[in-house]
């Protein structure tokens, strides 16, 4: 019981025991929790961006096969349409010739509105084409999609005549076969041959009142050859320089690392404290993220099917936030030390957590990037890019942390002007309806050299993460 009294007495005595901590403790606590918060946000944005990129990538890849098949289908249909149109024109010519021939021969058995084209009259029952069947051919299952996508092209043209007694599918396949053969020949046929063929086509040789299905197919295919060569412009496969503008938007930070240099009283770099807050030994200037943007131009050139090279010039505005103490409007030009002998400042800030301060950095950068195309989709590119960006600090309104004097002030001379950054990012590109190419994606930029001159105990490195958009000129 007596023992319990002792403990109770001790507890009661110690209950009121308290000690006022140094102000530096709160500054350090505030800095550390701000840093944790910043890290938490960075992780959040990183994973959000990664998930977004993943989702976009998945969408592109999942849509790739669909797009390709649709594109192939469209191409086939377009070719079919052209071939059919040309064939129809030929048939029309053949019809005219046929009618003339029929008229000459006095063959009144043939219906004028429904001309018959056969070979030598021997295969009259096997293979002849009537206009009434043309509608069926157009509406044939294999060509129905063609009708859908190229409605205007087909409807105003003369109809193809289809044999009534043969399978429509077989006929269509035959036509297609001829088209394919001629398409394969396409590259090897000279211009003179094409002209020759065109002349022949202009005057189809019909030695009788009828033409065969094979002849029709040949006519169609030859006509297609002419059409392809005269109308379709093959894009140049050679790689060319492309130009465009770049816009960046995101957040920037100033990452600090210890260099192991201490500015204690024994150091030659030590400056006698000018601030009454100088007893705050563990304080330091800390940075939090803030808005950043950049704008510039670039030129790029495909190195091969996968790799692109680009170089440009950007203006990049970095910004970070800091917590500072009171602003002291007092000239401090008298305190000279190793690296501050030429410095004269009119005002400075103390270490504290009273007010916010925006540190601005204006950089001109020359990003030299190589990008790797990850997919084969020509309409939607997914690229990984990386490279370096030499830069020049053209101006700054950032605080310099004079750890010797333990004050903060603006001093451009304490920053390295030449710097170099490493870049990495992922870009998703597409072409809009007007053919303009756009790329958008997350990027990271990290300055690998020390931003501040190496007389202080921490190195500073600018860091940017955000969204980059490239607009290509036509």
């Amino acid at each position, binding site marked *: 019981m*007596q*023992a319990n*009294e*002792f*403990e109770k*007495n*001790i*507890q009661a*005595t*110690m*209950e*009121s*025991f*308290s*000690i*006022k*901590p*140094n102000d*530096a*403790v*709160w500054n*350090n*606590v*505030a800095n*550390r*929790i*701000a840093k*944790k*918060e910043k890290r938490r946000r960075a992780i959040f944005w990183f994973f959000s961006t990664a998930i977004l990129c993943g989702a976009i990538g998945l969408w592109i890849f999942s849509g790739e096969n669909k797009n390709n098949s649709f594109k192939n289908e469209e191409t086939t249909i377009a070719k079919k349409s052209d071939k059919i149109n040309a064939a129809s024109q030929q048939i029309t010519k053949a019809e005219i010739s046929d009618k003339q021939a029929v008229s000459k021969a006095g063959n009144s058995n043939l219906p004028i509105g429904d001309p018959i084209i056969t070979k030598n009259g021997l295969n009259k029952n096997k293979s002849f084409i009537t206009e009434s069947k043309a509608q069926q051919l157009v509406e044939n299952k294999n060509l129905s999609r063609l009708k859908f996508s190229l409605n205007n092209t087909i409807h105003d043209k003369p109809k193809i005549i289809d044999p009534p007694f043969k399978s429509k599918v077989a006929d269509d396949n035959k036509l297609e076969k001829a088209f394919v053969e001629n398409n394969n020949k396409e590259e090897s046929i000279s211009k003179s041959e094409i002209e020759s063929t065109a002349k022949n086509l202009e005057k189809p040789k019909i030695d009788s009142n009828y033409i065969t299905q094979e002849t029709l197919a040949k006519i169609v295919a030859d006509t297609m050859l002419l059409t392809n060569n005269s109308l379709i412009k093959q894009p140049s496969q050679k790689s060319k320089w492309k130009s465009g503008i770049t816009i960046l938007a995101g957040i920037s930070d100033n990452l600090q690392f210890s260099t192991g240099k201490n500015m204690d009283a024994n150091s030659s770099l030590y400056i006698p404290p000018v601030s009454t807050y100088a007893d705050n030994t563990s304080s330091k200037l800390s940075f939090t993220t803030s808005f950043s943007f950049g704008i510039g131009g670039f030129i790029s050139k495909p190195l091969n099917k996968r790799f692109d090279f680009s170089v440009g010039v950007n203006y990049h505005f970095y910004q970070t936030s800091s917590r500072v103490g009171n602003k002291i409007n007092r000239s401090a030009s008298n305190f000279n030390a190793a690296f501050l002998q030429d410095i004269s400042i009119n005002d400075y800030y103390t270490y504290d*957590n009273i007010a916010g301060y925006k540190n601005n950095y204006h950089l001109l950068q020359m990003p030299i990037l190589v990008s790797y195309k990850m997919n084969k989709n020509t309409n939607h590119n997914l690229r990984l890019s990386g490279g370096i960006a030499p830069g020049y600090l053209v101006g700054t309104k950032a605080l310099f942390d004079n750890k010797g004097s333990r004050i903060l002030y603006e001093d451009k001379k304490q920053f390295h002007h030449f710097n170099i950054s490493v870049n990495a990012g992922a870009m998703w590109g597409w072409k809009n309806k007007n053919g303009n190419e756009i790329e958008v994606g997350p990027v990271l930029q990290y300055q690998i050299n020390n931003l501040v001159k190496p007389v202080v105990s921490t190195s500073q490195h600018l860091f940017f993460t955000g969204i980059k958009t490239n607009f290509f000129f036509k």
Partner: protein
Amino acid sequence: MSDHFQLVKDCLKHKPSAQKQLYVEFAEQMLGVCYRYTKSLQDAEDVLQEGFVRAFTFLHQYNNDGELGAWLRRIMVNTALNYLKKNRKYQHDLSFDTVDLTIVTTEDPEVYVNCKELAELIRQLPTGYQTIFNLHAVEGYNHNEIGQLLGISDNTSRSQYMRARQLLISWIKNSSGNKNVVYASK
């Protein structure tokens, strides 16, 4: 209590003003706790700093059903124990068998010293004694809990505490004008 509820809520929204308010309200009291577990004020402030960082980090785990001060106090104590274990300066002293004293009296005097003097006396104890004494006599942990916290048996905790207690009593007597030394090294 309701003020603390709102304060915690604001802190969870990462409002710097609320965070500072919470710190200001509890920092002095918590530094008193940290001070008793360490040997220097600088170490105590390091523990305080680490403790508050942990408190703000895990503030979402505070469920408002207890006193915020008590919750912070537990965090500070745990942080102090971790600090003692990790800090090389204390690792050697935090041995519970190196100091062997023989108690020559078991009298329990009244505590006449003020809190500052008592805190200083507690800090004069060997680190192991100091830790166990703080945990049991001041914080109110039982020996089973202390054993779990420090990785020692209940009996070790109990015996260490008794020795620390007697040592402290002897110092209190001395500081109160009673010059009879009631302990001696073996």
